[in-house]
C-alpha cells in the first residue's frame, strides 16, 4: 500500500513579499535565542522554538559557514528575524545577550558549549548525551545548579504522547511485575570501505570542529552528519539511541541506579577501523551488548548494524518483560502489550509524532519554556539527562576496558577501579581545558 499526502495549497512556497508567519502565535515574553551547532537536528529544534512563538533568534553559530548561511536564510524566511552568524561560540556569547541557548553540536563539544552558555547567563536546551565523557556531564549538571540556570535535555521521548501513556500503563501494573528490560536498535549493514581523506572544504573550520578532540585528517564521512560513529566525537549507537532507551528504562524505574555494568562489542562485520594519511573508516562498534544489574531487575542493551530486523516485529525500542506479559515501547510503531496469556487481547497505541523526523520536540520545547517561566524542573531536566548519559557512557567504558564496572551514584565514581575512574575524563587537545566539576 502506498502512503500519499496531499499538501494543502498554503504549504509550499515562501515568496519574497509574504509576511513572516511564525510570530503570529506570539505570547508576551520572547526569548533572545541562539543556536550553537546549526545542523540538521539543531534546525529541527530551532524550527519548533520559532513555531512556538516565544523565540527571537539572535544568533547562529557553526563551524561550517555554508550551513550557517543556508540556515540563517531559513530563519529569516520563517520568522523575519535576521540572526547574526558566528563560527566561534565564545565570540557569540561575548557579543550577544542570550537568554536561551540551544546546543546541538557533536557530542565532544556539548559540555564546553553548555558551560559557556550557563556562564553567560542563558538557560540551555542541550541535545543528548550531556557529555562525551561522564565528567563533562557532571560539570554541566553542577554548573547549571550553581548558577540556577535551567537545562532541558533533548529527550523528547520523555514527553511524547505514546511514551507518557505507555509509562502510565507500566506504572499502573499493566505488565505486572517487571523482571527484565531489553533495549535495542537494529539495522542493516555490512563491511565498511574506507573513505578518502581530503582537504577540509573551504567553508569548514576543521580545527574548530575537532576542538578539544584530537585533530585528525578530514574526510567527508565525518562532516556533515557522520560524527556519531567516530569515537573521538561521539559514542556510537549506545551514545545516541541508547541514551533515549536507557532514559525510558530509568523513567519506569524511578531513576534507580545499577550496581554494575558490563558491555562487549566490536566490529566483526564492519571490519577493523582504518585511520591513516590517505583514508579512514568509522570506529564505533558495529554491534554491542550491555548488561545493567539493578536491585530488582536486569536491563540489557543490544545494537547491531547488520542483519536487519530479523524475525522480530520491530527493530527499535524497549521491551519490559513482566508477569502479565511483554510491553514494547517503540518509535513510529507506538506501544504494544502482548499478554502472557495468549487468550487475552493484544493492546496497542499508535505513536503521535512530528514528521518527517518522528519526534516530539514541540512538546519538549514548550515544557522547557514553561520551566523557565515557573521555575519548575522540566521533564528532561539535566539530572535526568545526566543519568541516562552516564549509563550509556558506562557501557562504552566497560566495553573499552573489557570488564565490569561498579558505579556509585553518590560519589559519582567507579568502585575500586582506578583505571576505570581515569576514563571518566578525557585528555583535551590544547588550548582547551577539561571542565572542572562544581
Amino acid at each position, binding site marked *: 500500500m*502506498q502512503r500519499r499526502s*496531499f499538501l494543502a495549497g*498554503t504549504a509550499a512556497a515562501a515568496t519574497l513579499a509574504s509576511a513572516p508567519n511564525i510570530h503570529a502565535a506570539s505570547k508576551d515574553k520572547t526569548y533572545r535565542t541562539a543556536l550553537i551547532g546549526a545542523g540538521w537536528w539543531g534546525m529541527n529544534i530551532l524550527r519548533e522554538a520559532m513555531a512556538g512563538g516565544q523565540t527571537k533568534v539572535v544568533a547562529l553559530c557553526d563551524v561550517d559557514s555554508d550551513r550557517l548561511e*543556508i540556515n540563517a536564510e531559513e530563519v529569516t524566511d520563517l520568522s523575519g528575524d535576521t540572526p547574526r552568524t558566528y563560527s566561534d561560540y565564545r565570540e557569540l556569547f561575548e557579543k550577544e545577550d542570550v537568554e536561551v541557548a540551544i546546543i546541538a553540536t557533536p557530542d565532544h563539544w556539548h559540555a564546553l558549549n553548555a558551560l559557556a552558555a550557563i556562564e553567560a547567563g542563558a538557560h540551555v536546551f542541550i541535545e543528548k548525551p550531556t557529555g562525551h565523557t561522564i565528567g563533562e556531564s557532571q560539570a554541566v549538571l553542577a554548573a547549571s545548579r550553581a548558577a540556577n540556570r535551567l537545562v532541558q535535555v533533548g529527550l523528547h521521548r520523555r514527553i511524547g504522547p505514546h511514551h507518557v501513556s505507555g509509562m502510565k500503563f507500566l506504572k499502573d501494573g499493566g505488565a505486572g511485575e517487571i523482571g527484565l528490560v531489553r533495549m535495542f536498535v537494529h539495522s542493516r549493514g555490512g563491511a565498511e570501505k574506507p573513505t578518502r581523506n581530503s582537504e577540509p572544504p573551504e567553508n569548514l573550520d576543521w580545527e574548530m570542529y575537532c576542538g578539544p578532540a584530537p585533530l585528525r585528517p578530514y574526510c567527508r564521512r565525518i562532516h556533515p552528519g557522520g560524527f556519531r560513529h567516530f569515537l573521538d566525537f561521539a559514542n556510537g549507537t549506545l551514545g545516541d539511541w541508547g541514551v533515549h532507551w536507557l532514559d525510558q528504562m530509568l523513567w519506569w524505574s524511578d531513576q534507580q541506579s545499577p550496581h554494575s555494568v558490563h558491555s562487549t562489542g566490536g566490529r566483526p562485520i564492519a571490519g577493523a577501523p582504518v585511520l591513516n594519511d590517505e583514508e579512514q573508516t568509522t570506529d564505533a562498534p558495529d554491534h554491542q551488548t550491555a548488561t545493567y544489574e539493578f536491585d530488582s531487575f536486569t536491563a540489557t542493551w543490544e545494537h547491531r548494524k547488520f542483519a536487519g530486523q530479523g524475525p522480530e516485529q520491530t527493530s527499535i525500542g524497549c521491551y519490559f518483560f513482566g508477569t502479565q506479559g511483554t510491553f514494547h515501547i517503540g518509535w513510529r510503531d507506538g506501544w504494544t502489550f502482548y499478554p502472557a496469556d495468549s487468550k487475552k487481547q493484544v493492546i496497542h497505541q499508535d505513536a503521535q509524532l512530528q514528521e518527517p523526523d518522528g519526534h516530539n520536540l514541540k512538546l519538549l520545547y514548550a515544557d522547557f519554556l514553561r520551566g523557565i517561566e515557573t521555575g519548575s524542573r522540566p521533564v528532561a531536566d539535566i539530572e535526568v539527562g545526566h543519568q541516562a548519559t552516564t549509563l550509556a557512557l558506562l557501557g562504552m567504558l566497560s566495553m573499552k576496558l573489557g570488564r565490569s564496572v561498579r558505579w556509585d551514584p553518590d560519589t559519582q565514581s567507579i568502585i575500586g577501579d582506578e583505571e576505570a575512574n581515569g576514563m571518566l575524563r578525557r585528555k583535551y587537545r590544547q588550548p582547551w581545558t577539561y571542565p572542572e566539576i562544581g
Partner: protein
Amino acid sequence: MPLPHPLLLRHKLASVSRHCVAAVTRRRRVHGLASVATSVFSRTLLVFALPIGVSCSVAEDWYRWRGPNGDGISTETEWNCDWKNGQPTIAWSHSVGTGFSSVVVKDGRVFTLGHVDDQDVVYCLNVADGEVRWTFGYPAELDARDFEGGPISTPTVDGDRVYVMGRAGELFCLQTSDGTKVWGKNVAEEADVRLPGWGCSAAPLVIGDKLLLNLGESGVAVDKHSGELSWSSDDRECGYASPVLIPDSDPTAAVIASGRAYIGVDIQSGKQLWAERWLTSFNCNAADPIFHDGKMFLCSGYNRGAALFDLNDATPSLIWKSKEMKNQIHSSILYQGHLYGIDGDMETGARLRCMDWATGEIRWSVDDLRPGGLALAGGRLLLLTEPGELMIAPATPDGWDPITEAKVLDGKSWTAPVLSDGRIFCRSIQGQLVCVDCRD
C-alpha cells in the same frame, strides 16, 4: 547523472505549517481480455488529449542526456503500456558494467557506459536485439569507496560522434560507427582543475563547434572536433548537474552548476555573466536548471530546496522559494505548468512530488514509492523504482494513479529510464540494461 551521497544523512524537511492528508492509493492492474478494450480506449483518449503543437514523431532519437529538447520529455506517442498479464515484453537484457550512466539512442543504436574489470567501457548495442556493435574501454578505477562506484555521466551523441566523460576527468570522442577513438584526454588535468568529491558526472553539451563540460568553477569548453581547450575556469569544485543552454540568450549562454552556485556563462568566452549563490551541505548541485518562459528553476538536496527566478534582467531575481522540493540527484521534469520530481534523500527515503511551477505549491506527494529515476513521455510519467519496478502513470497535478507497473530489473536502480524508438531502457547500478518493448 550525478552521484548519490553514500552516508546515511537523515533528510530534513521544513515542516512548518505543512498540512498533510493521508489517503490510500488504489492500484490498478490491467489483465487479460479487459486490457484490449482498455488500451484502445486509453490510446484514443491520449490522442485527443494531446495539446496542439506537440509533434507526434513515430520514433525519436534520445541522443543526449534529458533528450533532444533537454527537458527529460519524449514526444513519442506510438508506444503502449497495456502489458499482457501485467508483464511487459523484455526484448533483450545485457550487462553493461557497474555505474549510474543513463543511455542515449541514435540511429538504431544505444550507447552507455559501465565499469568492468579495471576499465570503464563504452557500449554500443543494437536497439533491435541488444547485440554489441562495439565497445571501447579505458583504464579507470571502480572507486567504490563511497558508493557502488563506476562511471556516472551519460554519453552525448553529435552526428557521427559520441562524447564520453569518466569520473576522473577522462574525455573521449569516438566514432559512433565503430568506436574508433577520434581524440581523448584527461580534461581535468589539462585544465588544471580539481575533481568534485564524487567525480565528474555531467553529460557533455554540444553547442555549435564547442563541447561544454561541467568542470572547474564555471565550466570548461573544448573544440568538439579536435578536443583542443577553448577556455576553462578557476580551480574550484564543480557541481554534478549537466550544462544547460539558456533559451534565446544573447550572447548565447549556458548555466553551469558549480559546487556553490549556478553560474550563467557566455559560451564563446567562458566569461561569467552572473552567479546565483546556491549552497548545499555537500557542494552537491546535481539537478539541471530548468528554463521556461523567461524563468529559471533551481533545485538541490542536502538542505537546500527549490526556487524560481526571473531571468529577464541582467541577474536572476527571485520569484519564490521552497523547501518542499529537494532534488538530490535527479532533475525535475516540467510538464504543462507542473514540475514532477524526486524530493529528498535517496538513501533514507525520497518522495515523488508534483509542484506548481508558478507558485511552488505542492500538488501531491507519494511517500513510499522508493523512486529511482523518472522520465516523461506522451503525457505519462515513467518511474523506475529503486528495486527495479517500472511504473507508468498520467502526468497530472490531480494525483499519482499508475496505469501499470511491472518488475523489470533486479538490483538497485537509480538511473532515469529512457523512452526512445518505442522502447523503454532501464538500467541497474550493477549494470543490467533491459529493453522493454512498448511498440504495438
